[in-house]
């Protein structure tokens, strides 16, 4: 996951980025050390709440949120199991950032889905047994 975030960070003007899960917990971060984990977790919770709230209000899926401040830009991409948050300079090359972020979103979605599935299996061992049974070749009596 860190490699994916580093790819986003490679774009000129990007300060750093991080991924939060649906509860707002920071899953992975590639931001400079001056941003502490508690602050990022607060932001993660705010943004996941915002995405959920906006989706409910508009009855549609939020694709991304682009916030432009005096000197900075904060882009949030909605993931299937959380969100990708990118902090960059105000005049970042947005088409390039969007392109790279969209690629990152695809990879992160599959990563988060598999992590989520593993987590589900860990919580419910019967799911694992069921999955194992399904993957077994069926026995045939000749």
């Amino acid at each position, binding site marked *: 996951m860190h490699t994916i975030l580093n790819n986003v960070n490679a774009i000129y003007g990007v300060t750093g980025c991080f991924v939060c899960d649906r509860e707002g917990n920071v899953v992975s971060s590639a931001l400079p050390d001056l941003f502490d984990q508690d602050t990022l977790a607060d*932001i993660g919770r*705010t943004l996941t709440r915002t995405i959920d709230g906006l989706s409910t209000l508009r009855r549609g899926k939020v694709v991304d949120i*682009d916030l432009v401040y005096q000197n900075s830009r*904060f882009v949030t991409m909605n993931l299937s199991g959380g969100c990708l948050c990118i902090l960059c300079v105000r005049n970042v090359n947005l088409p390039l950032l969007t392109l790279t972020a969209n690629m990152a979103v695809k990879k992160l979605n599959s990563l988060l889905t598999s992590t989520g599935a593993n987590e589900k299996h860990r919580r419910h061992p019967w799911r694992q047994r069921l999955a194992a049974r399904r993957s077994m070749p069926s026995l045939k009596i000749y």
Partner: protein
Amino acid sequence: MPLVGSLKELSLAALIQLNCQEMNDVKISLEYLGKEGVIYCSRGNVVHAVSGSLSGAPAVVDLLGWQGGNFRVQNHTAPTEVTITQGWDSLLMEAMQRIDESGAAQEDQLTRLARDLDEIPTVQGVVIVARDGTVLAESVEGNAEKEGAVAVFLGNSAAQVGEALSLGALDWGVVNLGKIRLLVLERTNFFVALLLTEKASPALLAARVSDALAGVD
């Protein structure tokens, strides 16, 4: 001992009326969001008022227009000068009338602004909404209150993120909902939300809206 309280509990108009009817010589000091003002009552009338750079009757109009704040009434205080000579009742009547007129004028201005912005080809609708979610003006097909709620929701979240990361004031924000994008701009007392077409450039529109909003705050 001075009387201290909140203007939400006892309005300035009621304070003036009470002190003038009682023929009290008082100094009413007021503060709201860092602003300060003062009104002197003497021998049954308002005789002097100051609010920022305003003095006299215009200061009373300004102070009566405050949406909240605190007051402090000090008894037996002589006015520093006399800038008002009309009776307290006619002063209050005139001030209230001017406040109503200026409120209506701002409402008209916002309605005109919403209509003008909606005429931009890449804009599909406009909602101007107060911080509490009240729709002040709109030019949109569908539910203006819902779009307004989205704007307030996004504005508040953006403020939290900006504060946590020390990013400064929000200039503008865009929510991308697939086919629809919503551009939100924040002003002191309200948010402006514009529904954009796919071809719209949020940055260009934000600059254009900011120009149009100059002087509306």
